[in-house]
């Protein structure tokens, strides 16, 4: 293809390092915004900023390393990676470490390891590998098997319980199936099935605190000092930011600590309060740029596996953004999903940038591939 030939000619340093300059720039912008907001929401604690910087450094190194691995290698490793992840998930359920009321971690002596994070990449890899073995669009039987690959880890993670991660893992797999060309009729049928399944979830699968979250979401004012407190304070923070915001370090909701979880899951409320609608639109613009760039990479990828994988990673990234903003602004129930690259915290950061490493690999290593 013309495009492919053209890119092989390019020899900038970044290209040779398999770095997508546009993505890197956009990601760096987000990280910068994240650090600025963490500084404000964490009570101007440089220690917090430094720790986040360290994590970002590690995550960027992971991204850089993963960008060097050609997509073909990912394809070959997908099954092993997925199997490894699945074993780990089972291990977590059996011998996992309990923290924050959930059993999510494996203690490996040196570090604590969260296998569910592995699944965020392993599931799209696995589904993309499996589906792309056949001609597209896939047949219903393949789709069904694909769904099984998705649901096993989803349910294992949901049992920990970790609703946020299981949601992200499920969507990453479903997106892969969607992008592979699954029939619209089938999509309609599965959506309907999902709708019918919801009451079953409610009565048999959801934990008490999860039900509470949903109830609180439906009517936060019913318990303004208890379960509804987070969401009410968050909406007050966002709303009182207005068009232009209260200014950096001037957000009273965050500075006076009315806002809970303000440097982690609810950091978007801090950002909205201090930078207003203008700042939020700017932030969404950057996210949108990254998503469109990711989907372009998917579109221009050379084989079905790469296309599906890249698209799935990008759309999952969008789910992060949408779910986080949705829950913080009261559109969705509160599930533990961080605002990608802004929220303070290390685990999801590494996975996210690992995903972008794969994306960059797909973006920059097309020339090495044959059909």
């Amino acid at each position, binding site marked *: 293809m013309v495009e492919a030939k053209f890119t092989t000619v390019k020899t900038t340093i970044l290209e040779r390092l398999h770095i997508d300059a546009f993505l890197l720039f956009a990601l760096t912008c987000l990280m910068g915004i994240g650090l600025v907001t963490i500084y404000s929401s964490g009570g101007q604690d440089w220690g917090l900023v430094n720790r986040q910087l360290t994590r970002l450094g590690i995550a960027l190194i992971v991204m850089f390393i993963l960008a060097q691995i050609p997509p073909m290698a990912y394809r070959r490793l997908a099954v092993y990676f997925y199997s490894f992840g699945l074993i780990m998930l089972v291990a977590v359920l059996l011998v996992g470490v309990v923290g924050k009321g959930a059993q999510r971690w494996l203690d490996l002596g040196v570090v604590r390891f969260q296998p569910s994070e592995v699944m965020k990449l392993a599931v799209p890899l696995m589904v993309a590998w499996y589906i792309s073995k*056949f*001609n*597209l*669009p896939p*047949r*219903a039987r393949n789709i069904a098997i694909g769904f099984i690959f998705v649901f096993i880890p989803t349910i294992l993670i949901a049992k920990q319980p970790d609703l946020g991660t299981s949601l992200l893992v499920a969507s990453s797999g479903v*997106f892969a199936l*969607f*992008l*592979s*060309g699954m*029939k619209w009729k089938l999509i309609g049928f599965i959506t309907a099935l999902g709708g019918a399944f919801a009451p079953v979830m409610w009565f048999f699968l959801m934990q008490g605190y999860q039900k509470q979250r949903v109830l609180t979401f439906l009517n936060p004012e019913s318990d303004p000092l208890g379960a509804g407190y987070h969401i009410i*304070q968050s*909406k*007050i*923070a*966002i*709303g*009182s*930011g*207005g*068009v232009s915001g209260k200014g950096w370090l001037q957000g*009273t*909701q965050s500075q*006076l*600590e*009315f806002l809970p979880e303000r440097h982690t899951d609810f950091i978007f409320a801090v950002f*909205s309060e201090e930078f*207003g*609608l203008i700042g*939020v*639109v700017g932030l*969404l613009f950057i*996210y*949108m740029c990254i*998503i*469109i760039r990711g*989907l372009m990479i*998917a*579109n221009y990828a050379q*084989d*079905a596996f790469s*296309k*599906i994988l890249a*698209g799935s990673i990008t*759309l999952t990234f*969008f789910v992060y953004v*949408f779910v986080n*903003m*949705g829950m913080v*602004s*009261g*559109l969705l129930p509160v599930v533990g999903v961080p605002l990608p690259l802004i929220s303070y915290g290390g685990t999801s950061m590494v996975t996210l940038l690992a995903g972008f490493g794969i994306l960059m690999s797909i973006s920059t290593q097309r020339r090495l591939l044959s*059909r």
Partner: protein
Amino acid sequence: MPPKRQIIRDHTAESNLVARRTFVSIILVSIMMLVIIFNLYQLQVRQYEDYQTRSNGNRIKVLPVAPNRGLIFDRNGEILAENKPVFSLEITPDETGDLDSTIEKLSALMSLSENEISEFRRDMKRQRRFKPLSIRQQLSHDDVALFAAKQHQFPGVSIEARLSRYYPFKDALTHMLGYVARINKRDLGKLESSEQLANYAATHDIGKQGVEKFHEQILHGQVGYQQVEVNNQGRIIRILSFEPPIPGQDIVLNIDINLQKKAQEVMAGRRGSVVITDPNDGGVLALYSSPSYDPNLFVHGISQKEYSKLLASKNSPLLNRATQGRYPPASTIKPHLALLGLEDGVIDETTEIIDRGTYRLKNVNHVWRDWKKWGHGKVDVTKSIEVSCDIFYYDLAYKLGIDRISDGMKAFGFGEKTGIDLLEESGANMPSRGWKRARFNEPWYIGDTIPVGIGQSYWNATPLQIAQSVNFLINKGQKHTPRIIQGYLVEGAIDKIPIEMQEPIPVVDERNWDLVLDALYGTVNRDHGTAHTAFRGTDYISAGKTGTAQLFSVAQDAEYDEENVSARLKDNAMYVGYAPFSNPEISLAVVIENAGGGSSNAAPAARIVLDYYFSEIKPRDIAQEIKMQESAIASLAAETEGG
């Protein structure tokens, strides 16, 4: 239709398929992004005002600031109720580091009692740990000094100062002045119904008795506000604005503290009361009820033990005898009855009776006796007052009948509250046919009327009512409402409250009034007068009337006590009087419970007070008047200079 398995993959078709799906994805992502933006637009633009308000509501707290209570002065500018800083030892548990060892060390230093510590621990459970909590309410100066020297060893422990009421004259003024104490549930209810709750948001104490209660609104002032920014735990971050409270008005009373103290002195060890007023305006110069108690006990919360002691005392110290004690007025009301008889034409100045010591009615099997066994002989109206002849008044009461007596005495204020500025007041009882019917469901018998003539029977009155009735006599029917408060202290000058007058008693013939007043003069100044001995040799001319009431003890629901019963059945000694006779400026009523005869017990006490007034107070008043005139002239001069 799903295609059959193909051996050769159509990469272009697959590419297009994924491309289409990618395109759909971009559309979906864009729609969802728009949903997010639309929602944020709703929150940040459409509902901005609402959330802005709620955000401010979160962080801005308005804290009430208590106004300083108005001070109370006597007529000479002597301070009767002041605000003194009290120091309390407060611990902020969060800041101590180790609370237990802090308490232990403090306990060693200040010798805290078990009680103080356990109360502190109990209160701590109800409060946030970063808020200071007092462990000792009233620190002595020694305590303060002791702690101040070692404060650095106690992080999180501090001494807090607050203004609290103090009554320097202690038990001398209790019943009249009253006291303040911590606002309780009942007070809160009243404040709420009078929509004063907000005004008391920061106030610690409220007037519970006496002037402190009656003039609460004036004394309290207006609450101020401090706008502060707080964090999510309610800790104050900074002060945003301050609207200072308006302090309560300082008030000046008609009371003369020296006269009051004299009244206390003469009543020492006795039960009863002294009421001294200025007949010219109804101003109350002294109002003392004995026994008394220290009102300061109540300000900081009286202990249960001490309160029970006051409640259980047979001497009823909590009762304000001057306004709540219901005594038979006895002979003190003879002048009033004589005047009623004269004005109604039932008797005149020539009416005479022969008093042989007994009084009988036809068809009534009862003998009423004079206090003088063999009688006073020939008695006219003047002599009847001077010698306090009983038979004359049995006869007069018989002639007047209960209806006329009841109405006439009500005009003199009997049976009704005087309207003094105290809430602890009884109207006592002026009996009538209707009253007896309502009270006992019995008709009024003629036998009931006869003892009314000497102020006995069902008739009872408070010492204040008796004092007031004498003023009405002196003023020939003009009625001033008794007033403790004189006015407000505004920038060093007294802003007087207008004197309140009631509907006067109509005068039929002024000579009747003069006749009665002359008889009061005679009581003190003529040889046979019952108060002549007591007032022999005064360097002022006074008039008055003695009274001796048979009992009826005032003590409410006193228990029957065999040992004390005889003492409690002794007569009440009473005296009313005024001076100088020609131009009265002071009048008084003295009631001493179970003391015996009025002329030998109450009259001498009254003389001590009057002597004191004319030897000590009046000369000083004149001097002060001159001084005030001089200063007024000086300030006027300064004003004209400045202007």
